[in-house]
């Protein structure tokens, strides 16, 4: 949250930021299209059952104009305006709604282009702000593609305390440096080397056993496995579609991510907004030395299936050295290596994972590694710490162990835990990280 100290109001930028603007005029077509699909699903089903083309056509004849006019009314009622400190959105036909989004609370801006919108050259702008409860705070759908990108640059500029007129949008767009484009091969393999492989192998084993015992069982097993296969398959396909062509680029306003095959999404994570970073290395990836990086900013939406197309990945798959370099970049500093191991007593409390437990603490970060099959490493910037907790269960007390929890404002990744440290060490850790978090907070404050 920076104070715009050096922003000299320029005459040229004032009309640009002060006028009310409507969404793209093709919006009713897309919005209405969605409404129409629902209507068709209801009426069309009856038409098909009665096998009468007339009913179907009649439904179409009523439905299309109705959908379009509803869409048009909604479009006419919605407009937005950008001032120097906030984005104002007004919408609603029957119930009027007026929203003010303070730009100081802006966490990230996504430009999403669903498949149909792409055909029309449209895009949707989603803002994430602190305290936004479920779903994007103010989705602007739909804008022209160019307009969406320009608006995003302006929003991020204003949020960072720069004057709107300082940078011309097209120049800013070109100023990015691509760090990595994830190739298709590793993306596909990394997705398959997980639940799909386990389920596949498991199914083959069960089938072989079934075939040996009684051949007639095979059909039943196959039939029973169908829901499981559909579940795993749709997960894998969804992930590949979402993370296809994953590109990470660095620009003046933060890290930019672009990904997606059918629906493309392009998000910007402004510098210094990351609450928690998670690096995961599943067991089956280890021969390849791959890692996955996920980040969370405050207020990123969690609920609402359709809204949550993003998987939260900063990098779906990459060699671990590269992953660690990217983590250092997004955090603006190299996190310390994990080296501090818990006392030997921890193996009684965590027999499967105690070998992996380790933490690292420096002036700016707390890093913790844990996990049984998947090695998970979480990094918390101490400046983002909301609260710290020590917990000790009955068994831990016998063994003289205490766990330290570090909470951040992330929704999907709400901080980390340093499990099963020695009692005295945990108390010292709590004291140390509390003091360092205070110092880091003071240092990052404007």
């Amino acid at each position, binding site marked *: *949250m920076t104070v715009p100290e050096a922003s000299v109001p320029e005459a040229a930028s004032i009309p640009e930021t002060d006028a009310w603007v409507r969404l793209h005029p093709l919006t009713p077509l897309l919005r209405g299209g969605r409404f129409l699909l629902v209507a068709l699903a209801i009426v069309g089903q009856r038409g098909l059952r009665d096998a009468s083309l007339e009913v179907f056509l009649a439904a179409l004849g009523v439905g299309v104009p109705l959908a379009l006019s509803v869409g048009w009314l909604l479009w006419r009622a919605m407009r937005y305006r950008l001032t120097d400190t906030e984005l104002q959105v007004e919408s609603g036909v029957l119930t009027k709604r007026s929203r003010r989004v303070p730009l*100081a*609370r802006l966490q990230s801006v996504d430009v999403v282009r669903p498949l149909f919108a792409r055909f029309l050259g449209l895009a949707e702008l989603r803002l994430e702000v*602190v*305290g936004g409860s479920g779903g994007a705070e103010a989705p602007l759908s739909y804008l022209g593609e160019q307009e969406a990108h320009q608006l995003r640059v302006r929003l991020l500029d204003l949020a960072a305390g720069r004057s709107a007129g300082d940078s011309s949008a097209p120049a800013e767009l070109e100023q990015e440096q691509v760090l990595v484009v994830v190739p298709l091969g590793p993306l596909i393999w990394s997705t398959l080397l997980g639940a799909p492989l386990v389920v596949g192998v498991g199914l083959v084993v069960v089938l072989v056993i079934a075939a040996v015992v009684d051949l007639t069982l095979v059909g039943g097993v196959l039939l029973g496995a169908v829901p499981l296969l559909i579940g795993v398959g749709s997960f894998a396909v969804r992930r590949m579609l979402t993370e296809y062509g994953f590109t990470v680029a660095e620009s003046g306003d933060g890290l930019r991510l672009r990904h997606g095959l059918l629906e493309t999404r392009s998000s910007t994570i402004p510098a210094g907004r990351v609450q928690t970073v998670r690096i995961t290395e599943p067991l089956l990836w280890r021969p390849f030395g791959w890692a996955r990086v996920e980040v969370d900013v*405050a207020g990123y939406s969690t609920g609402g299936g359709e809204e949550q197309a993003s998987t939260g990945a900063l990098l779906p798959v990459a060699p671990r050295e590269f992953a660690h370099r990217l983590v250092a970049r997004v955090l603006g500093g190299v996190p310390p290596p994990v080296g501090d191991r818990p006392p030997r007593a921890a193996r009684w409390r965590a027999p499967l994972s105690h070998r992996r437990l380790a933490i690292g603490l420096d002036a700016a970060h707390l890093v913790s590694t844990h996990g049984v099959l998947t090695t998970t490493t979480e990094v918390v910037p101490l400046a*983002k*710490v*909301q*609260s*710290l*907790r*020590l*917990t*000790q*269960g*009955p068994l831990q*007390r016998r063994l003289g162990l*205490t766990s330290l*929890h570090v*909470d*951040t*404002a*992330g*929704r999907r990744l*709400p*901080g980390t835990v340093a499990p099963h440290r020695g*009692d*005295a060490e*945990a*108390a010292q850790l*709590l*004291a140390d990280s*509390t003091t360092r*978090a*205070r110092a880091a*907070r003071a240092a*990052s*404050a*404007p």
Partner: protein
Amino acid sequence: MTEQPEAEVAWRRPDRALLRLRRQLTVALLTLPGILGAVVLGVLSGPVAGLAAVAAVAVLTWLMLGAVTRRWAAWGYLEREDDLLVRRGVLLRRTSVVPYGRMQFVDVTAGPLQRRLGLATVTLHTAAAATDASVPGLLATEAARLRDRLAALGEARQAGV
């Protein structure tokens, strides 16, 4: 778990009235129905069974009263210069540190039972959902004092998320 030695003296506890309330609740919900059950059992299947049941209820009550007391004694809070410490729990021990600057809002709640005794629970909320810092059984004046002090300190040290 070891607390910082210099802090040991200043820990504050919920009011004794909360302990009395919890004890009374234990007696009302466990002992009285237990005795009633034991009497019915005694009438139905003879005095031996009845006396055994009374003894069982007595032991159980004694254990529960001990647990309630330890649970009450484990609650504590400490206002430090930059943060609030809250500790609680006997079986599962928890200590939370919440920097004043991270506070989003403070809740003061009181259920019907607490309200009758003039008690209230103060809960601190931060932007993290996992933050778990609440102190029950504070006298209304102390709850109001704590709430105002926390709110003032939070205002003074507010940091950006």
